[in-house]
């Protein structure tokens, strides 16, 4: 088999036959299995629909195409939300048809408002939850338009639509789960283990000082993407097996622990950098042994990383012991600084030591939740906070308005021209507006789907009028359609062509028109096809013209709201605030990074800004916790609140003047806290909170004085990067 002259040392440029074969087995075989499974499920759905005599059997087949996903959990999750969306859409149609069936203008306007609402929902939610809103919007169009002309049929249309969708979902789900299943749970486990190991390596590298700034930034970029991808997988795996359901809470806890440890390790790193810049060598010398000790506890020199959650159990015990000892060790090191350092150095030491303590606590939590995953039946050891996505009401409402306008304009054209296929065009315009409401570059997405539409139309035409007419009976029909379907499903398996594949499948399934009574009439087929293309065109136009989703202004708005996340830390309700702040900031950062222009360094600027925001926000929350103490004098409390307000003003709109006001407020609050600490009328717990508040104030002061940080927050929001990305989209 070996065709290379040096079989022992295969080079990267000329893989051996064996390697090529294994490579093909690894990447192509799962793809073809997926293709075969999907075709089987689609034909099964079609056959059952024919046997049961459904009105439009192709809807069942189309549903299989739409929910087709490589992993079982994703199929089930998408199916679940598809059912919910379809039901909601049906109910809405009943109401709308019942109210406005006599007045087509009113009916279409009400429909446009409903679609706008659904699109707003789709833009607010993530993953398959958004998909439920899409479905609610377009099911209403799908049932509503035909039945508005014959209101008495609305109920039957709705029932058959729901039955067809359900049949498709059942077939897709059963086939995905039974025939050579690929479980999402397995990839989730791999992801959990991989990210824990990677994080451990990263942390020990950072503590030992092996990582430079670039490596630090790259890792953070990666962490942000991990947090979002992990939540998406957890959400979908919930539907897959009871195993994932039992662990769902713990997985959420794990993700929260991952986020907060990543933030505190970064804050620690920033603090060390600042101390190095300030030349605080005495402080650094006292801290270095503590860092070394923690790094040794995490991974002993030449030690192995734990491969599974069960293997991490000894590590969790070591961290817990270290966490218990740490306050004493810090106190000992503090005495050394106290003896020969001044007050400023002591404050710096306190800040750094507090961050180290906080990081150790979070690493302990993270490792504990990781270890807890290895037990099959236990519940989470504490209440798992739910994932908080960043939702932007302005963008979402704009998407809603966009969808309403698209539907209204197509409807106007429909009424004015009395076009028989107008309903199809309006439906497609509505589908596109809902589907791409939250996409980072909707025009490109619409273009991909439209290209798929054109190919799908051609394929359906050839299939319906060249291949199918001489064939008779279901087996021959299936055989005739299979090659055409295969092309579309294969396109889905490659992320680069997935959009085209989806368009191809939708168009092909819609146009092929396999009915119980077969009619070979090309005219309506072409009409429907062109109607769909026109609908897609209108959607693309609306996306490009009406408050364009990709303009600099919208992006600036998002970049600005990244800074304004601090306002949540300043004014949000205190319960669970830390997690909400952390989670929504990271989520927004993830959304921004997804569309960032990496070549122009935009991702680095975004990361720098996000990390400053996280630092400031956590310090402000510390401050607010200190201000909430009951024994604090009224004047002191007012001073703390005033400093929080000054900071909020600064982060709402950074100017030099506000920066000085904020510094002034921070200085005044520091004086108050120190007075309260010296007064000595506080118990241990309150003292700890006050100390944390003072450390927070110190951190805020350093942040405010640091010109680099201030520049990253106040810079006119990345003009170079946004124009560059605008150019690539225009090209």
């Amino acid at each position, binding site marked *: 088999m070996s065709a290379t002259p040096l079989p022992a040392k295969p080079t990267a440029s000329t893989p051996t036959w064996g390697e090529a074969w294994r490579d093909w087995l690894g990447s192509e075989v799962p793809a073809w299995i997926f293709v075969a499974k999907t075709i089987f499920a689609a034909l099964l759905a079609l056959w059952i629909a024919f046997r049961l005599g459904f009105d439009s059997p192709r809807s069942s087949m189309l549903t299989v195409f739409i929910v087709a996903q490589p992993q079982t959990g994703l199929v089930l999750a998408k199916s679940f939300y598809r059912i919910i969306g379809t039901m909601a859409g049906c109910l809405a149609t009943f109401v709308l048809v019942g109210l406005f069936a006599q007045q087509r203008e009113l009916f279409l306007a009400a429909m446009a408002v409903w679609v706008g609402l659904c699109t707003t929902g789709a833009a607010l939610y993530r993953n398959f939850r958004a998909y439920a809103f899409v479905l609610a919007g377009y099911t209403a169009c799908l049932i509503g338009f035909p039945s508005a002309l014959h209101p008495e049929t609305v109920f039957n249309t709705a*029932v058959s639509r729901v039955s067809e969708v359900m049949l498709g979902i059942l077939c897709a789900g059963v086939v995905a*789960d039974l025939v050579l299943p690929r479980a999402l749970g397995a990839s989730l486990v791999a992801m959990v283990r991989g990210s824990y190991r990677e994080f451990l390596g990263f942390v020990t590298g950072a503590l030992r000082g092996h990582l430079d700034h670039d490596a630090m930034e790259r890792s953070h970029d990666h962490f942000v993407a991990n947090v979002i991808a992990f939540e998406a997988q957890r959400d979908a795996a919930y539907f897959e097996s*009871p195993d994932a359901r039992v662990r769902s809470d713990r997985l959420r806890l794990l993700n929260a622990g991952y986020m907060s440890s990543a933030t505190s390790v970064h804050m620690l790193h920033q603090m060390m950098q600042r101390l190095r810049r300030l030349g605080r060598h005495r402080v650094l010398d006292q801290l270095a042994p503590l860092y070394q000790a923690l790094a040794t506890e995490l991974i002993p020199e030449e030690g192995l990383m734990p491969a599974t959650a069960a293997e991490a159990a000894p590590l969790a015990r070591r961290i817990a012991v270290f966490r218990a000892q740490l306050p004493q060790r810090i106190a000992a090191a503090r005495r050394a600084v106290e003896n020969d350092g001044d007050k400023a150095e002591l404050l710096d030491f306190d800040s750094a030591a507090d961050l180290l303590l906080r990081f150790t606590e979070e690493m302990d939590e993270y490792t504990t939740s990781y270890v807890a995953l290895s037990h099959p039946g236990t519940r989470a050891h504490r209440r798992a906070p739910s994932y908080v996505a960043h939702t932007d009401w302005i963008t979402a409402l704009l998407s809603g308005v966009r969808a309403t306008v698209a539907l209204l304009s197509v409807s106007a054209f429909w009424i004015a021209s009395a076009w028989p296929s107008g309903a199809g065009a309006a439906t497609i315009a509505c589908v596109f507006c809902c589907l791409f409401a939250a996409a980072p570059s909707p025009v490109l997405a619409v273009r991909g789907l439209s290209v798929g539409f054109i190919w799908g139309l051609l394929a359906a035409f050839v299939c319906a009028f060249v291949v199918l007419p001489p064939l008779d009976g279901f087996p021959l029909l299936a055989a005739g359609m299979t090659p055409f379907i295969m092309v579309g499903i294969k396109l889905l398996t490659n992320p680069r062509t997935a959009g085209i594949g989806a368009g191809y499948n939708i168009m092909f399934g819609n146009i092929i028109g396999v009915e119980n009574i077969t009619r070979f009439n090309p005219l309506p087929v072409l009409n429907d096809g062109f109607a769909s293309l026109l609908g897609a065109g209108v959607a693309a136009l609306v996306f490009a013209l009406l408050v364009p989703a990709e303009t600099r202004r919208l992006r600036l708005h998002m970049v600005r709201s990244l800074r304004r996340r601090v306002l949540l830390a300043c004014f949000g309700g205190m319960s669970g605030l830390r997690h909400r702040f952390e989670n929504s900031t990271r989520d927004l950062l993830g959304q921004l990074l997804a569309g960032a222009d990496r070549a122009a360094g935009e991702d680095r600027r975004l990361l720098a800004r996000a990390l400053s925001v996280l630092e400031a926000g956590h310090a402000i929350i510390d401050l607010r916790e200190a201000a909430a103490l009951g024994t604090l004098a009224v004047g002191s409390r007012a001073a703390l609140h005033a400093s929080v307000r000054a900071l909020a003003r600064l982060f709402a709109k950074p100017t030099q003047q506000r920066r000085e006001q904020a510094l002034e407020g921070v200085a005044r609050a520091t004086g108050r806290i120190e007075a309260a600490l010296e007064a000595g009328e506080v118990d241990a717990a309150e003292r700890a909170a006050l100390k944390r508040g003072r450390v927070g104030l110190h951190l805020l002061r350093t942040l405010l004085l640091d010109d680099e940080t201030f520049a990253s927050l106040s810079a006119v929001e990345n003009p170079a990067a946004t124009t560059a990305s605008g150019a690539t989209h225009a090209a």
Partner: protein
Amino acid sequence: MPREIDLLGFYMPTLLPVFILAFALQWLIDSLLGRLGFYTHVWHPSLFRFSLFVCLFGAMGLAFYR
């Protein structure tokens, strides 16, 4: 037992609520078995789950259609 249920003038096959009931029951049993770690001893868990559902639905449906 009637084969169709009159729901506000809409005739719904009795099998539909039976299906939903069987599904809920299966979800319950499935969660219980998963919590007990039963599925580690099963070769094809999803096939087992599907068969369980077919048994439940079949038994309940036959009870109504007898």
